């Protein structure tokens, strides 16, 4: 490829597409370099589901209001203050104007859903999920004349002082070629699919982690930029992980591998011992900590045990539970020591006390006298058949990223890199220093993708 593009966008998920579309609408000549093959295009966006959106009044499909302060407060709760307030507020405030923009460019939302989802005030759900959103944006991009290349692995971003001159790109395994452009947007995600990198950062136990999303987020571009002295942000040793079904595929299991049974279970480790209060809070407020809890156990594995009373209290899992008529039999089927598990269950059962059980609220039905209490929903496991699920940490994303300004520009100690912007997971650590807020990843991607596209287009105009 000898042509010179106005803007080369590295990556093919939500942030990359928002940047490319925004830039192309100004008339710029844009190329998208997506590392994945076409069926897997879209990075982790294809696994997402919703967009967290500020709104000062009802705004279809969102109900009520969700103001900046409440949104920011929710973010502070999960990040425990590890956020760049300026960038966070920018993302929150800009989210409101993003929703109509998304609809204009083909994204469709579910009408406020019936039933269990209580997020219709704060989060707009994509009809068909993230892959439908990705498809809509790719169609919009094609209609705008954006060139889209799949299996385009960017190996090197060539920096010459405070400018980027070109990319070295391997397309479908062919020898690397140069792609030249006048401005560049990096939106190629984090490094969570590179197990070696995870193992170096977290420790060898990371090899037992499952990766919930795309196998293509290997952080090649992120590492290349950090090696070239770009400013970084976020804890390089940390990743966000939730507890998922241990039988999930190593990569790309997505939403269906989640397990919502913990509050109604007792969870034991490899040695048949409980290790944390399963009923500490409702599951939407606790699912995110169980990845780390399980990761800290021997062999990075846990086992949730349930009895027949509770099996219908949570969303079905994609994998059927292991079933047995007695606890020792269940333990044996799960590969655990039957005697140890039976002792744990017996001890737990005798610590339960009678009282009203309310599965949908904190019912205060707690154990008495246990070293590790279960503080809500504590009912004895006494009604066969008994069910068991294996739990493993499922990594969602990594926190290490490129530090950007409020114009999404990438910086180095010598100052801004004049023709380089970043958006999406590759820079999300600036705002999400810890924890996760449902639907906020897509907000960051959309807001900063559009900013990056606008700024890059202004640079080449």
């Amino acid at each position, binding site marked *: 490829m000898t042509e010179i593009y106005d803007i080369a966008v590295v990556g093919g998920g939500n942030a990359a597409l928002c940047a490319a579309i925004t830039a192309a609408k100004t008339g710029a000549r844009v190329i998208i370099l997506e590392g994945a093959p076409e*069926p897997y295009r879209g990075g982790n966006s294809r696994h997402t589901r919703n967009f967290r959106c500020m709104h000062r009044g009802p705004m279809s499909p969102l109900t009520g209001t969700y103001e900046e302060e409440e949104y920011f407060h929710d973010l502070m709760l999960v990040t425990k203050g590890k956020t760049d307030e300026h960038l966070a507020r920018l993302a929150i405030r800009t989210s409101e104007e993003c929703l109509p923009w998304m609809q204009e460019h083909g994204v469709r939302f*579910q009408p406020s859903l019936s039933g269990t989802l209580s997020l219709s005030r704060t989060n707009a759900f994509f*009809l*068909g999920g*993230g892959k*439908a959103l990705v498809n809509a944006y790719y169609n919009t991009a094609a209609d705008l004349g954006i060139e889209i290349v799949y299996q385009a692995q960017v190996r090197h971003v060539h920096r010459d002082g405070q400018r980027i001159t070109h990319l070295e790109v391997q397309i479908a395994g062919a020898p690397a070629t140069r792609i030249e452009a006048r401005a560049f947007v990096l939106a190629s995600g984090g490094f969570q699919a590179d197990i070696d990198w995870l193992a170096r950062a977290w420790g060898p136990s990371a090899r037992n982690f499952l990766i919930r999303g795309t196998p293509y987020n290997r952080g090649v571009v992120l590492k290349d930029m950090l090696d070239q002295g770009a400013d970084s942000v976020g804890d390089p040793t940390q990743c966000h992980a939730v507890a998922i079904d241990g039988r999930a595929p190593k990569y790309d299991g997505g*939403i*269906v591998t989640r397990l919502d049974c913990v509050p109604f279970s007792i969870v034991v480790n490899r040695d048949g011992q409980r290790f944390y209060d399963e009923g500490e809070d409702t599951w939407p407020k606790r699912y995110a900590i169980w990845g780390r809890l399980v990761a800290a156990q021997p062999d990075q594995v846990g086992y949730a045990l349930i009895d027949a009373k509770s099996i219908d209290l949570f969303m*079905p899992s*994609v994998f059927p539970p292991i079933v047995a008529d007695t606890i020792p039999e269940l333990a044996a089927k799960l590969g655990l020591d039957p005697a140890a598990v039976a002792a744990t269950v017996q001890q737990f059962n005798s610590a339960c006390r009678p009282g009203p059980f309310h599965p949908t609220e904190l019912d205060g039905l707690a154990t008495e006298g246990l070293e590790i209490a279960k503080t809500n929903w504590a009912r004895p496991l006494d009604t066969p058949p008994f069910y068991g699920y294996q739990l493993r940490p499922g990594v969602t994303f990594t926190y290490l990223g490129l530090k950007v300004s409020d114009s999404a520009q990438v910086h180095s100690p010598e100052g801004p890199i004049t023709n380089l912007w970043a958006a999406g997971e590759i820079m999300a650590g600036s705002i999400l220093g810890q924890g996760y807020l449902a639907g906020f990843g897509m907000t960051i991607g959309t807001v900063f993708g559009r900013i990056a596209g606008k700024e890059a287009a202004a640079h080449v105009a």
Partner: protein
Amino acid sequence: MSLDLAPALSATEEARRQIEICNACRYCEGFCSVFPAMTRNKAFADGDLTHLANLCHNCRGCHYACQYTPPHEFALNIPAALAEVRHESWERLARPQALSKLFQERGVAMAGLLTVALALFFWLIAAFRPAGGEGFYAYMAHNLMVAIFAPAFILPLALIALSLRDYWREVGGGRVRLRHLAQAGRMAGRMRNLDGGHGDGCNFEDGDRFSHRRRIAHQLVMWGFLASFAATSSGTVLHYVFDWPAPYPIWAPPKLFGVPGGIAMVIGTGWLVALKLRADPNLGARRVWGGEMAFVLLLGAVAATGLALWLATGTAAVAPLLAVHLATVMTLFLLMPFSKMVHGFFRFTALVAEAGKQEKG
């Protein structure tokens, strides 16, 4: 290397495997009637799958939106899995069984039957040409037509009624209320299950892009067919109640319904054929592709020959055109229980059942 000796899953087992994965995701809730029906269950009995399969209108929205389509190891293809179960249910519930699969799958068999019908009508017109009579009845006596077509119409309908009764039992349908019929009528009348939930239409002929083409083409055929049926019915009423036999002038109900209906059917079937040629056959039941295509062509032929017959009034072409038209109508009637024609009956029944199930929650 080990040999994989696991037996292939049956259509119902494969659909169950896929729907259980689907039901743990639910991102597609909102596309169509299948998803709200699916989320009422945690486990899926065979009858539940039959119900979901007949609610599915093959809009394919869920397939293009799915994170788990091949090459993902979960290998979901919900439109194809449900199409297989759906066709299997029509074949299983049809009677006589021997005929059911033959015509669903094979356009050649349908063409064979048509040929036999053609021969029959050419012979009838040649051998039993009446002495008097006006219009068509100058070529074939009214009573002879009634004697042939009344049983050829009523018998297949009776067979379909028996199939639908079995279907109702299989899916656990409850008591039918007028409002259930009204809801099903609204869904079918506007083909809501092909509007994508967002109103942009379905995915069919152009990958993951949405369009209303298939929905409009289908409705042209459906409303055209119903108008043609109204034309025949009004003709019957005029004949017997008002003692006014054919031919009818252009302003009389048989023509007022029949001409636009026939034109809509010709346009709609031609459009559906063109769309089907562009659609991905792997997102439907592949084995019935030929039978479905033959059925659409047959419907188009019924309408086209009917219009041609009207335009040929008074010319020498009437005799052969009449034979051809009556042969296509005869084939269509006889094949109602064994061809894609039956989908209309099952889909509508499924929508009625779903209206009732929604109330029960």
